[in-house]
């Protein structure tokens, strides 16, 4: 997949950073205003997808390869589980064990911002990984069957039964 025209590339250079920051803002402020992990993660994935679409596959492979997306996806999920397990050890499962400050501050509501962060990372990179798998499927298959597709949600691998 080659990138798009020069105009798109320039605009993306300007805009993609802001989109990413906006996504991070929604993730971090999830306990104060509407949004949270999932919505912020989707916006973050949108920024990454925009970069891939505008600059082409080769560029994105240098900057954000598929394996990194997969790994950080799993790490995000494990982070969420770690928060839950820590809660289990300290109190109950998923209990809020960090101090809750005032309603409306950034550092309030216990473990919820951490969960939001983990989910934001997971959804952002996971959705980006899904996009890579779906969009690059033809390309990888055409390239003489090189490699097998290990997307987190993309269909099964190559190969069948003997």
């Amino acid at each position: 997949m080659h990138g798009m025209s020069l105009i798109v590339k320039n605009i993306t250079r300007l805009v993609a950073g802001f989109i990413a920051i906006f996504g991070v803002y929604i993730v971090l402020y999830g306990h104060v205003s509407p949004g949270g992990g999932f919505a912020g993660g989707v916006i973050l994935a949108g920024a990454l997808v925009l970069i891939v679409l505008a600059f082409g596959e080769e560029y994105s492979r240098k900057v954000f390869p598929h394996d990194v997306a997969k790994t950080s996806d799993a790490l995000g999920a494990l982070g969420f589980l770690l928060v839950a397990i820590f809660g289990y050890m300290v109190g109950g499962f998923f209990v809020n064990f960090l101090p809750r400050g005032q309603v409306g501050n950034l550092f309030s509501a216990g473990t919820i911002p951490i969960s939001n962060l983990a989910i934001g990372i997971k959804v952002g990179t996971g959705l980006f990984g899904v996009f890579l798998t779906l969009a690059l499927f033809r390309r990888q298959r055409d390239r003489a069957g090189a490699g097998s597709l290990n997307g987190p949600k993309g269909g099964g691998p190559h190969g069948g039964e003997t």
Partner: protein
Amino acid sequence: MTFSMLPYLMAFLLLVVGLYAVVAKRNVIKVIVGLAILDYGVNLLLVLVGYRRSGTSAPVAPILTGGMANEPGLVAQSVDPLPQALVLTSIVISLSLTALVVALAIRLYEKYGTFDTERMRNLRG
């Protein structure tokens, strides 16, 4: 009064349209779109279920802004936040489902050469 039933009717209409698209269409992509419309209909229905009219003033969204801890007025006036949480979860589930079924459709096209479900009849009996 029937005026307030209109959103429910719309949600039901979405459900019916989605179900029709899934059942009656031959193209796999149209079936996928039908599944998406089904999801929209159900999510809309869930959000509507949470609508609560307080009787005194217009209902507000259940958001706790700064310094507003445990205000009883908010509890009485806001819509029900629980179905909104359900809808969030449901949206996430349908997102992953859509991703999976689109991946399946891509692979199906590669194997069968067509998107027509009438031609994908290897399994029979």
